[in-house]
């Protein structure tokens, strides 16, 4: 370049002694730090980070991106997890030492039963129906269960009981979306996507429920429990049903039988919708 002074007069003698300022400025361009690209992709939801957390089922891998938590999975190791994650989502996942502090706390609170703990979920690529099923499952409190037919009826698809079961089996964020709290309409525990039925029993037990007792009721044909003082009937694990003392407890085989006995349905667990669907 030719350098001009303030009056715009070129000074070739000076120029020859100077390094090229333009070349010097051009050399000030730098490569981006390696993590910038990955972080950007994570922020917009085109890649994920993941970390390992402990659970009653053993170590879980939790993946998240800027849109929310995308995956919760039992995996043998990082390699298996990353391969499976890529095959399923088409995105890369990068192991991080831990969850972001706020997300970690929210998951901890949610697993401890606090449904108000806010956790954004990234459920892209799934159908409206699946999402409706999962969001409904989120309403089931810790320590309680609902039948598949209850979910089907609550989301306005009372005949889609099998589809509800399939959707729950595809839940990408088990434990956070508590699909383990949905059981078969006859009251038996049923299948579980996170490592099988035995794990479902483990989780339900950890949440204060007795799976054997539940299946005992199911075998005896008991679907509902009422109180002869309030004359309200509930699903057996509804917190209101469990408050009823032995002396006042009444068991029913169907909603119709409850109604015939002069009982009305609980407004919290809404047992009648399940009966319609079952």
């Amino acid at each position, binding site marked *: *370049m030719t*350098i*001009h*002074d*303030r009056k715009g007069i070129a000074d070739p003698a*000076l120029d020859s002694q*100077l*390094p090229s*300022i*333009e070349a*010097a*400025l*051009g*050399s*000030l*361009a*730098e*490569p*981006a*730090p390696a993590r*910038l*690209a990955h*972080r*950007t*992709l994570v*922020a*917009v939801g*085109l890649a994920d980070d993941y970390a390992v957390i402990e659970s009653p089922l053993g170590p879980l891998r939790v993946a998240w991106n*800027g849109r929310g938590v995308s995956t919760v999975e039992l995996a043998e190791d990082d390699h298996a997890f990353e391969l499976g994650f890529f095959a399923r989502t088409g995105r890369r996942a990068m192991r991080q030492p831990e969850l972001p502090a706020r997300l970690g706390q929210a998951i901890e609170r949610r697993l401890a039963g606090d449904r108000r703990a806010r956790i954004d979920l990234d459920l892209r690529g799934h159908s409206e129906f699946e999402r409706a099923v999962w969001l409904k499952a989120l309403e089931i409190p810790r320590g309680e269960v609902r039948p598949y037919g209850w979910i089907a009826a609550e989301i306005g698809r009372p005949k889609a009981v099998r589809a509800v079961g399939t959707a729950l089996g595809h839940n990408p964020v088990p434990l956070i979306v508590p699909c383990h709290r949905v059981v078969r309409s006859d009251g038996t525990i049923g299948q579980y996507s996170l490592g099988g039925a035995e794990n479902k029993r483990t989780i339900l037990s950890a949440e204060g429920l007795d799976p054997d007792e539940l299946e005992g009721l199911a075998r005896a044909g008991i679907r509902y429990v009422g109180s002869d003082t309030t004359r309200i009937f509930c699903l057996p694990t509804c917190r209101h049903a469990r408050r009823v003392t032995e002396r006042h407890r009444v068991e029913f085989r169907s909603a119709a039988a409850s109604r015939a006995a002069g009982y009305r349905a609980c407004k919290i667990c809404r047992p009648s919708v399940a009966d319609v669907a079952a």
Partner: protein
Amino acid sequence: MEAADATADTALAARLADDLDGSFEELVDAHAGRLFSIALRILGDRPDAEEAAQDALVRAYRALSSYDATRVRELRLRGWLATILVNICRNRTRVKRVSTVELAFDPGAEPTADPMARRDEKASWARRLAQLPPAQRMAVVLRHVDGLSYAEMAAALGKPEGTLKAQVHRGLVALREAYLAEDRREREEMTA
């Protein structure tokens, strides 16, 4: 080379219009380095620059996902991304009144005080650049660190080309003077 970049950008814009999620990573690969460099030379701090560059790319993604395909196809990515970044850098320096640039490149620390520093030509030019007034620095960085055309700069900064040419010119003159002043001081010290 600029023409080749422009052609590559036109092709990339077309791919972004067709499949944003499938081609956004290409945009990141092609532009993250230059956005980081611009931010680094404007803000003077690596972590700040990294955040600003990431912020610019995330905003670009959100904008692209809200534009219709025709608008995306017609984008001139180099200048458009620079515009987004420049706005982010301006907001950051506005919030941080005590600019990290002034702190990181304290003019009181005489370059001649440390002869080793002079040997690192790159660091010296970065320091001199950081001492330019913000508007001149912005113009010089976009023109000579990033290599934008004056037309692209005019669009990015919202100023007439003539103003920008004058700012770049004044900036280069100031850089030359800073270099010569340091050179003089060094010679004086050697002969003292």
